[in-house]
């Protein structure tokens, strides 16, 4: 049985935030006397993550996903609760702990802007105590996996966003970390670049058994990488479990578009007890519950003259969107 690599118990985090009234009066008042209040952004959450798991953190903007990631990698001190990441207390940022983790943020970069990425890689290699030979070997391996080659020798400022992100990944993975914290890694990338990045992460996870914690607003990232998701709403966990199960729970029915050979069959179908969404000449769309889909389709195919049929999965974005906006979605 795989062991837990991340263990979070009753974690809470509060920030002191200032608020300002609008207008000049508000500005002057704010300058002399700031109104500060404590805002609890993470509220008593607990979860565990096993070694090698890829977990997606889902939530609306400001839900607390990034704060959780930053607490897990030791950047932010927790206000309450206990956290163990690979056996370490993250906020102590011990050298051995830092050698095991990495953080990649889609909107921030660590590469040296005026120099080719290769210079940043060797700088990181020296920080992680790798000799030149080992660094060269790892750069070669990772650049092959990421399919970057000439880009390594072109100044970062002249690279496209996709090439830059690949280089950022290489810089962040040169020390072969076994826990990856990815905060919106595909932000701003085109469809092909997003797909390549996802392919790389899958491969990296398979080859190294690295644990990956990911936040993304692109549902494709989540559906193609994560079996498990943790939904964060207002600093609390509203769902923690398999993505498939969540989708089934949120969307218990499938829509079937049936093309009949005659309009009579459409009428017969309409009167045979199925829940009808809409009909048009010899086409009818019915809703069938997920757990009875096989038996229902069998009945339809045996009793009606069917020309064609399409099973429509509701878009994942739409389904997930429901839990991101609704406060008390029943999961």
């Amino acid at each position, binding site marked *: 049985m795989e062991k837990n690599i991340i263990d979070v118990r009753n974690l809470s985090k509060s920030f002191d935030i200032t608020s300002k009234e609008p207008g000049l009066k508000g500005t002057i008042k704010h300058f002399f006397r700031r109104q500060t209040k404590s805002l609890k952004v993470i509220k008593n959450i607990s979860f565990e993550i096993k070694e090698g798991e890829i977990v997606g953190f889902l939530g609306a903007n400001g839900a607390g996903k990034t704060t959780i990631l930053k607490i897990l990698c*030791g*950047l*932010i001190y927790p206000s309450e609760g206990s956290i163990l990441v690979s056996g370490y207390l993250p906020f102590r940022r011990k050298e051995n702990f830092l050698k095991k983790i990495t*953080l990649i943020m889609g909107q921030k970069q660590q590469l040296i802007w005026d*120099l080719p990425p290769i210079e940043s890689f060797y700088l990181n290699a*020296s920080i992680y105590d790798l000799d030149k030979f080992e660094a060269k070997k790892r750069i070669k391996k990772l650049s092959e996996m990421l399919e970057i080659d000439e880009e390594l020798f072109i100044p970062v400022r002249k690279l496209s966003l996709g090439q830059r992100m690949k280089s950022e990944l290489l810089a962040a993975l040169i020390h072969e970390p076994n826990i990856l914290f990815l905060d*919106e890694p595909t932000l701003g990338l085109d469809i092909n670049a997003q797909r390549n990045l996802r392919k790389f992460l899958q491969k990296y996870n398979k080859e190294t058994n690295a644990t990956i914690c990911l936040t993304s607003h692109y549902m494709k990232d989540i559906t193609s990488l994560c079996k498990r998701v943790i939904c964060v709403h207002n600093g609390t966990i509203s769902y923690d479990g398999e993505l498939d199960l969540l989708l089934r729970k949120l969307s218990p029915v499938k829509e079937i578009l049936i093309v009949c050979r005659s309009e009579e069959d459409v009428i017969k179908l309409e009167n045979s007890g199925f829940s009808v969404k809409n009909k048009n000449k010899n086409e009818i769309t019915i809703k069938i519950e997920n757990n009875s889909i096989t038996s229902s389709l069998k009945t339809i195919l045996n009793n009606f003259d069917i020309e064609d049929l399409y099973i429509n999965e509701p878009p994942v974005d739409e389904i997930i969107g429901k839990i991101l906006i609704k406060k008390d979605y029943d999961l």
Partner: protein
Amino acid sequence: MVRRNKEIYCYGIMNLTKYLKVYTKFLHTSLASELEYKTNILIDLITAILSLIGSIFLLSIFFQNSGSIGGWDFEQALIIQGIYTILNGITNTWFNPNLTEIVKHIREGTLDFVLLKPIDSQFFISLKKIAPSGFLEIILGFCLLLYCIRINQINLNTSFLTLSFITIVCSIGILYSLWFFISTTTIWFIKTWNATEVLRSFLYIGRFPLNSFSFSLRVFFSIFIPIAFITTIPSEVILGLSQLWKIFLEVVVAAVFLFTSRKFWVFALKFYSSASS
């Protein structure tokens, strides 16, 4: 016990080797970055030369009507100018490019990357960059010092060199700590550009002998912002005018400042909340 000591010693050596290796990389990458912009370097070099000429000219105007100011004649005051130029060169080479960057790191949240590296964060943010044009100022400062040593007929001996070296190193330590301390407050105040500018303005005062100021200003520049320690004491050592207690005091002040700046940084990091994404 012996084995434990040996382990600590080996770890220390390995750590030192790693930090030297990383610093070599810092030098290499920042030199390469700076050399990408040749014209900028050229302008910086010309500025450094003109700035030194301007400062000496200003000093000569002060001494035009009186032979000495605060008991220092022009040739002696040039030593202060020499030390100031070296320190200003060090400021422009290391402190300015790195410590002003702390504000940017904190505002933009890129300090995250620094804090997650298995290396001392203070070392990283204090030494990652260098501005090579500042080297010229350091060289010019040393040239001016050598010239002053010759015109003031100062005897070069081991104790003189050791004491001069110690006091200049302490001055660098005090200057760095002051600058670092102000930059660290960014963690709470987010924007502190002005404070570092005020510090730079105060440093201009370091071009003049401390005795040339009134008593109250002398107290201010010795206790609150110890500019006096930064240039005047090393100059007195070079001229053989300094008493031992002053040198000792400068060492103590530098040690206290460095220690406090370190503790302050570690303390401040607990309040770092990172920028929102």
